[in-house]
């Protein structure tokens, strides 16, 4: 419980800020005005037309933050003595067990690359303008 709260406390604020800023921007766009002019209910305008566009930068941040989370878990798992990948990395450093450390680092980097790729794919789905590139 406490480890989860610790990590959550660390990574949530940037999300809140980004979603808030994104929504404020999106709600002031011309296409949101168009959606309102069409007479759509406020719920629809906010959750369909505004949120979809506000999410694009958020998805990018998810990838970055999950990466940080993996790094952060090294600290958190060590402090709370949890049996996880982070703790393993910590131990392999203490015992100078380089093959294990290399494996952990490789795994983490791989995870990072996959996350970034995933976020690009999700963003291309969210915003069709990103598809051509």
């Amino acid at each position, binding site marked *: 419980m406490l480890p989860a709260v610790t990590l959550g406390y660390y990574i949530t604020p940037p999300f809140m800020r980004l979603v808030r800023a994104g929504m404020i921007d999106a709600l002031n*766009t*011309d*296409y949101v*005005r*168009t*959606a*309102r*002019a*069409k*007479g*759509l*209910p406020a719920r*629809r305008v906010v959750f369909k*037309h505004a949120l*979809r*566009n506000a999410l694009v930068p958020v998805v990018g941040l998810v990838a970055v933050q999950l990466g940080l989370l993996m790094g952060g878990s090294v600290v958190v798992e060590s402090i709370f003595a949890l049996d996880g990948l982070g703790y393993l990395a910590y131990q392999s450093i203490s015992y100078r067990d380089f093959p294990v450390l290399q494996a952990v680092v490789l795994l983490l980097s791989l995870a990072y690359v996959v996350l970034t790729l995933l976020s690009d794919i999700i963003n291309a789905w*969210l*915003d*069709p*303008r990103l598809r051509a590139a």
Partner: protein
Amino acid sequence: MNKPLLSVRDLRVDLNTRSGVLHAVRGISFDVAPGETLCIVGESGCGKSMTSLALMDLLPRVARRSAGGITFDGQDLTRRRIAGRLRGRRMAMIFQEPMTALNPAFTIGDQMVEAYLYHVGGTRAQAVERAAQMLEKVGIGSARSRLSQYPHQLSGGLRQRVMIAMALITDPELLIADEPTTALDVTIQAQILRLLKDLQKELGLAIILITHDLGLVSRIAERVVVMYAGAIVEEGSAAEIFDRPAHPYTRALIDCIPQPGRTERGAHLGTIAGVVPSLIGPQEGCAFRDRCPVAQPRCASDIPTQQAGSHRWVCIHGGRA
């Protein structure tokens, strides 16, 4: 005049700004008859957009609207519930910026269908059928395949056509068009204008066309309202406004229309000397007097409204000064 479709009485829009309350619209009144084209014309910053947004209840948050009365087909538009029922269904609006007015994240089909399904109902297939029909009506070929395209795949002119098709999909009786051609190049402008005119005839649509370009007004309007500094300074039929303009501001605007053969090549086009006065705080006397070539000392006090039939103007001079 037969019963008006839209009737606006003493409409005011106030904006809170850092330097004080800006009175963007200062008690204007006008009517729109069913099937009629009314043009609201005036320089940029005269309160035209605020007027149109106020009618659709789309004003920005800093703006406050008040009105002696706004009715649509006899129903009280100042009541949120009623306005909510009419907006997007019996009264629709298109905007100046076709490049940003459509949501980049959804196909144009999706955006067209959604309004139809919400207001009219029926199955999705029916709505798609209707959307394709509307695209054809606004002159977009291979409508079916267009429906699955995204806004960024269309040109500005096409997007404005899509906006028009989308606005008309619920078969509204009134279309408010705020500078619909200003962002487009001249040939496309003419096409869109032609299209609006044709659609109006075909559908019996009333149009409020808002523009700063009086040249464009002469091609489409039946009645004209001239706005200056948040107020109506002259109102009349297109013939009255163009053949017998009574207000010095209207005359100045008309003089700005480039005339083939009459306007000198390279002459300074389309502007009246001087600037629109600040709209912050109250206005004493005629707001145009700093720029008016025929101003008199008494223009600084209350100006009477003069009338000749349906032709009305707010000036100390009667007719040709």
